[in-house]
């Protein structure tokens, strides 16, 4: 799938109450000023065209009613950082720090994303169609009945789910011959990582173990798979088979470290 075909996404063609911003030559502050002004003016949908690395898209919308932003081009680092309750759809690739310390809402990347995706996020979801970089879902958390979900279509690099304290991380392994990452779930002490495809024990970080898949896990995975298919318009069946479930060995990874 190319960015070209993504532009023709029918959802972005109709824009009731929406507005379009040509981002060429705008620095991030100016662009985010415009987005904030538009949201304050009641815009619920925006389409950003020609985005060239502008950072923090979605961050300045804190405290405003939910907005959907379609992004064409490559948004810069910290897309949706500290974001709460909004929806960002990237019709292409994203850079580092997607959903950094995010608190709610949804980010969809119709391409690949860079490093530290979903770092420390507490709620909301991030869906990436292709691969992600290093340290995805680092120190993701959860609280009460709320948990964040990160759904990755392809594969990831080292330190996936490092320090994970909560949340659900699903790696579908589509178009992936083998997962190459190591140190998966190093220091993990909460949450669940599901990886489809072969994972050797030597790829797991200390403190993480492989656990049995229960019917509730399969149900969750089926829901996530159909969500993935609907979001990215993927044809064909993806079976909830061949998943490995990784959980922490304990909630206290370093409890015996001290005298």
């Amino acid at each position: 799938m190319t960015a070209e075909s993504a532009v023709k996404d029918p959802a972005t063609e109709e824009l009731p109450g929406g507005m379009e911003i040509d981002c060429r030559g705008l620095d991030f502050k100016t662009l985010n000023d415009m987005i904030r002004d538009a949201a304050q003016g009641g815009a619920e949908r925006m389409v950003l065209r020609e985005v060239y690395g502008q950072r923090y898209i979605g961050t300045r919308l804190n405290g405003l009613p939910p907005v959907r932003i379609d992004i064409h081009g490559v948004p810069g680092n910290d897309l949706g950082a500290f974001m709460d309750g909004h929806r960002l759809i990237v019709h292409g690739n994203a850079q580092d720090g997607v959903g950094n310390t995010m608190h709610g809402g949804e980010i969809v990347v119709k391409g690949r994303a860079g490093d530290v995706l979903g770092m420390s996020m507490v709620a909301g979801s991030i869906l990436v169609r292709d691969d992600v970089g290093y340290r995805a879902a680092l120190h993701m958390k959860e609280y009460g009945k709320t948990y964040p979900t990160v759904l990755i279509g392809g594969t990831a690099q080292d330190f996936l789910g490092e320090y994970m304290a909560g949340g659900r991380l699903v790696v579908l392994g589509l178009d992936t011959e083998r997962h190459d990452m190591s140190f998966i779930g190093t220091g993990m002490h909460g949450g669940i990582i599901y990886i489809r495809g072969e994972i050797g024990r030597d790829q797991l970080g200390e403190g993480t173990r492989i656990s049995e898949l229960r019917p509730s896990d399969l149900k969750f995975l089926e829901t996530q798979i159909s969500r993935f298919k609907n979001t990215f318009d993927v044809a064909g069946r993806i079976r909830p088979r061949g998943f490995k479930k990784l959980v922490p060995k304990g909630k206290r990874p370093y409890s015996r470290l001290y005298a």
Partner: protein
Amino acid sequence: MALATQLLPEFRIQRDDDRCIRCKVCVRQCGFDVHSYDERRDCIVTDESKCAGCQRCAVLCPTSALTVMQNPYSYAPSSNWNRERITDLKRQAESGGVLLTGCGNDKGHRIYWDHLVLNASQVTNPSIDPLREPMELRTFLGKKPDRLQIRDGEPVDLSPQVTVETPLVFSALSFGAISHNAQLSLARAAREAGTLFNSGEGGLPRNLRRFEKNAIVQCASGRFGVEPEYLRRSAMVEIKIGQGAKPGIGGHLPGEKVSKRISAARKIPAGTDALSPAPQHDIYSIEDLRTLIYALKEATNYEKPVSVKIAAVNNAPAIASGIVRAGADVVAIDGLRGGTGAAPKVIRDNVGMPIELALAAVDSRLRDEGIRHECSIMAAGGFRCSADVVKAIALGADAVYIGTAALIAMGCTLCQKCYTGICNCGICTTDPYLSKRINPDVGSRRLVSLLDGWSLEIKEMLGGMGINALESLRGNREVLRGVSLSQWEMDVLGIRGAGQ
């Protein structure tokens, strides 16, 4: 199998049996279970091996029957293998772990404040009496413009500033490290005195959000409780890179301290360890730091100053320069003697440098580069009295963080057992029974009294120098002279020796 301990008790407790009325106050007050009542013999028995030396029992004993002193018995004298070394070694031989401790470095590294003396006016310029003449301690924290533009009587394009009525700001003390009542006391005192408290890295409980005008909220490596509302309802946001008591390392709040309330503030499941990674994993460079500074500015709509706090380390001046160039409005530097709720003892006692040297070096560097006005400097790390504060401001600080001093004002006696989660004065604990020992009415009153007392003393010292505004003292090293310092130390401090 647990090994039999070979440790010599650190403290010795003497009970005057003629005075003891068996009221059991000591039994109830000691969270370490040192005292227990033996019903059969009608006497109180003491297990000295558990004593932290906090003096809680001795102070509250209604008949003054108790004396807690350092155990006069020791191992054979040796300057090299002294008692502390032998004790630590035995503890590790018994457990095989990292030794933890609390509070600040107690190792007697040179305290430069005690080698700095202040000037005063005599004959040629009149001193000012602060009791009858106006004296200004008000301080504005934030980036200052290259030049001030005024339009229609209002400054144009001014970066956000936070006003404090005294240069004394409470240090970062997180909920979880300290009790809710202790944090509430700090918040109330800050509001009453017109200054700030600092949430630390443990989020902010909902009922403290009302102190938003007086709250510095931290965004640290664990990102605990860093939610949009937390950032929005604050006076300033601080990125915590490091802490003077434990430069370069993260922290672990043990799962047993993560109660329901703490889990709600930190947004992690109850009972799990709260891990603060050593680095912030989205910051591996000054450029990355800039990314986070601006992410926080974006998240707060450019309405709050952003501070970056680092531990005082060898390259602090160059790092501080990078921090300012990365867009921070405030640089906070925490020195070697800064306190902690828990740190590896070997780190607390050996890593970092005294705040006096780091502060002077950072201020000089930023001046040399012509960017000193682009940030405020907050100094932290073991400020004991108002004179230390005045000297720090003369060395270049805009304001100081006080942590340990504030805890002592509330009741702490520096027993250094904070890391155990047991605190007999109710500060460094999450145990509801112990936490009740801090009454926020009393705690905040004691803190306000401390701030009032120090502020008056600062005015006296300023007046004595013929200065009527703190602003005129800032970076005014001419008022300082060194005593018993070597030339390199005076060079770093940027001062002359007394008599020179």
